[in-house]
C-alpha cells in the first residue's frame, strides 16, 4: 500500500491505463522511439555523465591527461595499501598456472575453461565465490537464436546502443559466441525459460530490434551463478578457491610481465603471495563508489579493485568517462532505495508514466536514453512523484503486465520482483512501482582484445572490469553474456599462455614507480586503494573510533 499522499496520482495512472493498454495490445508502438538528434539532446542535457563536475583529467598512469569519471580518478590517484619494501618476495605462498581474481560469473567461467585446457587454477575472491553482480542480474542474457534474428542484427543493436563506440572485434566475439554460451550453460544444467516446443522464451530488451532476451524467471543471474559455482566446487583438485582474500596489487617480474598477485586475508589481516603464470582480473564493476552520490544496484564488493590493480601495472583504461544508470531503481519504500527493478518489467509491457499517468517515452530505449528522459520528467518538466523523504520518481505501471500477459504472469515470471515488494506490502500486480535511475554498470574498464589480453604480458581481464565491448552504453542482457563470453575466452587464453611462460625474478617496482608518479604530479592524498569495501558506518560512530589505526595492541 502506498501512502495517502500518492493516491491522487495513482488514480490518474489507473485512469489512463485502459487507453495505454489498448494501444499496447494493438501491436503498434506505444510511443515513438527517439531519433539520433533527440537521443543526443536528452543525453547531453540530463545524463549525469554530462554534468560539469562528472569528470576530471587523470594526472598519472597510462591514461594521463584523459577525462575520466571523477570518483574513479580519485581512486586511481591513491596510494597502495602496502609499502613494497615491507613485502617478502622470497616467500611464495601459492604457485599456480592461472590466478583468477574475482569469484563472480566471469571468474568462475574462466576457471572452468582454464581447467578444461589443462591449467591448475586459483580463484581469489574478496567475499564468497558467487558474491558478485552476476548473482543479482535478473532480466536475462542476449543471444541471437531465433530464426528472424542473427548475430549480425545483434551486432547492429549492440553498436547502436553503445553510440557506435564499441570495439568491433569485441562485439564480434560477443555476438558470435552468444548461442554457444547458451548451449554451454544449458549443458551445465542452467534452466532457461522455454516454450512448449523446447525453444527458449525470448523477449525484447531495451535498444534491441529482435526478441533475444533469454531468462530464467527473474533470477537469471542467480540461475547461472549457482550452476557455475557448483561446477567450480566439483573440481577441488584443479581449482582452489580462496575466499575473503581480495587481491590488492599485482606481482610482476623483472621482464615486465605480470606474475600473480598479493592477496589480503580480510580475517587474519595477512598479506600473502600467489605466483601465477597467467593472471585474470575478473573483479567486476564500481557501483559501490556511489558515483555522483547515486544509490546503486550493485553488490557490496563492487569497488573497482581490478581497475586499480591493472592501472598500477600499466594497463590501459577505455571509456572510463562513462557510467550506466539503470532507468528503474526503486525509490519507495525507502528500505529498497536504489534496488534494481529489472528491465524485464518493461520488456513484459510495463510503461513508465508521470504523476499524471502520461506515458512520456518509448519504454525500451537504450538505458542511458531512457534514464535521461526519466530525469527530464522529474526535473525540467516537474512531473515526478515526490516522496516524504524528498526523493522523486516516476511510476512504472506494472499492472499492465498481467493485463497483457494474463493473470499470474508476474508471480510466474517476475517472482523476485513480486517478493521484493510484497515484503513491504505492495502488490505490483495491482499497483505500479515508483522508480528513478540508479547507478548500475561500469561501461568502460581495462582495455582488452578479443582474447582478453591487456597490453601487459600474462595479464587478462574479463567481464565488467573490462572496457570496449559495450562502448559508452550497455544494452540489457549483454553483461551476463559478456562475462560468459569473455570469462570463457580469458580462461582458454590464460591456460594456453601458462604453458609457454617463463617467469623471472619477482618485483613490486611498478608500485614504487606509481608512488613516484603521484609525487611528481604533486598529488597529496591520504586515500588508499583498492578500497575493498565501502563503509556505511555513521560519521558519529567513525568519529569515536579513535584507535582504528593502532598497531601492536587491540584496536
Amino acid at each position, binding site marked *: 500500500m502506498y501512502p495517502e499522499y500518492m493516491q491522487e496520482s495513482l488514480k490518474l495512472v489507473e485512469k489512463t491505463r485502459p487507453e495505454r493498454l489498448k494501444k*499496447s495490445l494493438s501491436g503498434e508502438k506505444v510511443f515513438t522511439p527517439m531519433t*539520433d538528434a533527440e537521443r543526443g539532446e536528452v543525453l547531453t542535457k540530463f545524463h549525469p555523465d554530462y554534468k560539469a563536475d562528472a569528470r576530471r583529467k587523470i594526472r598519472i598512469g597510462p591514461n594521463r591527461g584523459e577525462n575520466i569519471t571523477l570518483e574513479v580518478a580519485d581512486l586511481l590517484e591513491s596510494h597502495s595499501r602496502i609499502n613494497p619494501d615491507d613485502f617478502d618476495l622470497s616467500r611464495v605462498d601459492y604457485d599456480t598456472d592461472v590466478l583468477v581474481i574475482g569469484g563472480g560469473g566471469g571468474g568462475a567461467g574462466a576457471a572452468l575453461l582454464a581447467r578444461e585446457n589443462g591449467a591448475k587454477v586459483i580463484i581469489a575472491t574478496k*567475499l564468497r565465490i*558467487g*558474491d558478485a*553482480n552476476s*548473482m*543479482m542480474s535478473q532480466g536475462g542474457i542476449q543471444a541471437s*537464436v*531465433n*530464426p528472424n534474428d542473427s*548475430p*549480425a542484427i545483434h*551486432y*547492429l543493436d549492440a*553498436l*547502436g546502443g553503445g553510440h*557506435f563506440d564499441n570495439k*568491433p*572485434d569485441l562485439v*564480434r566475439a560477443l555476438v*558470435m559466441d552468444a*548461442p*554457444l554460451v547458451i*548451449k554451454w550453460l*544449458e*549443458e*551445465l*544444467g542452467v*534452466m*532457461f525459460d522455454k516454450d512448449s*516446443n*523446447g*525453444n*527458449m522464451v525470448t523477449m*525484447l530488451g531495451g535498444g534491441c*530490434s529482435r526478441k533475444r532476451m533469454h531468462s530464467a524467471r527473474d533470477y537469471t543471474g542467480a540461475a547461472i551463478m*549457482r*550452476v557455475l559455482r557448483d561446477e567450480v566446487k*566439483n573440481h577441488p583438485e584443479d581449482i582452489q578457491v580462496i575466499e575473503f582474500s581480495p587481491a590488492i596489487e599485482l606481482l610482476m617480474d623483472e621482464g615486465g610481465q605480470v606474475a600473480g598477485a598479493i592477496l589480503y586475508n580480510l580475517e587474519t589481516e595477512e598479506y600473502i603471495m600467489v605466483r601465477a603464470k597467467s593472471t585474470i582480473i575478473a573483479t567486476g564493476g564500481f557501483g559501490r563508489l556511489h558515483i555522483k*552520490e547515486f544509490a*546503486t544496484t550493485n*553488490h*557490496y564488493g563492487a569497488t573497482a579493485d581490478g581497475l586499480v590493480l591493472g592501472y598500477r601495472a600499466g594497463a590501459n583504461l577505455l571509456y572510463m568517462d562513462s557510467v550506466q544508470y539503470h532507468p528503474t531503481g526503486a525509490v519507495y519504500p*525507502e*528500505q*529498497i*532505495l536504489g534496488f534494481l527493478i529489472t528491465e524485464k518489467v518493461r*520488456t513484459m*509491457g510495463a510503461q513508465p508514466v508521470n504523476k499524471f499517468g502520461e506515458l512520456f517515452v518509448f519504454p525500451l530505449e537504450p538505458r542511458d536514453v531512457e534514464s535521461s528522459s526519466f530525469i527530464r520528467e522529474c526535473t525540467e518538466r516537474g512531473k515526478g512523484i515526490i516522496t516524504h*523523504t524528498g526523493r522523486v520518481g516516476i511510476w512504472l505501471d506494472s499492472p499492465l503486465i498481467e493485463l497483457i500477459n494474463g493473470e499470474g504472469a508476474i508471480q510466474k515470471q517476475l*517472482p*523476485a520482483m513480486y*517478493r*521484493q515488494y510484497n515484503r513491504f506490502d505492495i502488490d505490483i500486480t495491482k499497483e505500479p512501482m515508483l522508480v528513478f535511475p540508479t547507478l548500475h554498470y561500469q561501461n568502460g574498464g581495462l582495455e582488452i582484445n578479443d582474447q582478453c589480453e591487456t597490453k601487459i604480458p600474462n595479464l587478462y581481464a574479463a567481464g565488467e572490469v573490462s572496457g570496449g565491448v559495450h562502448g559508452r552504453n550497455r544494452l540489457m542482457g549483454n553483461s551476463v553474456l559478456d562475462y560468459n563470453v569473455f570469462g570463457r575466452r580469458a580462461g582458454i587464453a590464460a591456460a594456453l599462455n601458462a604453458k609457454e611462460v617463463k617467469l623471472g625474478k619477482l618485483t613490486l617496482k611498478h608500485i614504487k614507480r606509481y608512488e613516484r608518479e603521484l609525487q611528481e604530479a604533486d598529488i597529496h592524498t591520504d586515500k588508499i586503494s583498492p578500497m575493498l*569495501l565501502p563503509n*556505511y558506518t*555513521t560519521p558519529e*560512530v567513525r568519529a569515536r*573510533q579513535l584507535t582504528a589505526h593502532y598497531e601492536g595492541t587491540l584496536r
Partner: protein
Amino acid sequence: MEEKTPSPKAKMISLYIMGKRYEVPEGSTIMGALEYAGYQLKRGCGCREGFCGACATVYRTTDDYKIKTGLACQTVVEPNMYLAQIPFFPANKALYDLDELEPSISTFQEIYPETFRCVSCNTCTKACPQDLEVMDYIQALIRGDIAQAADLSFDCIMCGLCAARCPAEIVQYNVAVLARRLYGKYLSKKGEYLESRLKEIKEHKYDKEIEEFMHMDRESFKKKYYARDIEKM
C-alpha cells in the same frame, strides 16, 4: 541519493545484536541497523538486495519463544529483537560429474542419501526467507519427481537457513541445485532453433556480414542502425 540513510527524524528503537543492546532507527533493515551501530561487515553481507544469501539471520523477539529467520538486507528491525547472523554453515556438498549422472532417484540415493532421512517436520519451509516450499521439494525428490523439485526450488538463494534448522541434517539447497542441473541438462525439452543457429555459425554463415559491419564507416553504419525494423513486443 545516498544509500539507506535513515531519516534524521526517525524514531529510535532498541535491539540486541548478539545480546548487546543498540539504539537504531525504526524502519531500518537488520543490515542497516548493524551498520548504523558501527559494524563494518565482512561476512554476513553480500548483494544487499536479496539475491545472494550471504546475510542469513536468526532472531527472536522478547514476547515470543519462536526462532525466526530472515535475510538481514530484507528484514525490517523490530523493537527488542535479539539477532545473530549465520554467515557460513558447514554444509555437505557432494562432488560429481554431471555427464556421468542419471536424472533419476537413484542418483540422489547415491549422492545425497541423507535426503531420504526427511522426517517431514517442515522446519525447513518455516525457515526459508524466500517462502519456498522446501519440505515439498525434498519430498518430491524422495518420490523421484526431479521436475517438481527443480520448479519448487527455483527461487532458492542458498542462504543455508534450511540446512541449519534441519534435524535430519539434509543440505536442502545443495540437493536442490543438483536437481535443477539434472532437469536443465537432461529433462527439459530442447528446441531446434539453438542447434540450427550453432550449425550456421559453424558454417561461417554470418562471418562476411559482420566483417562488413566492422569496416563500415560510422555514418553509413548509423544509417543502417536507425533504419532497422524493430520486432513487435
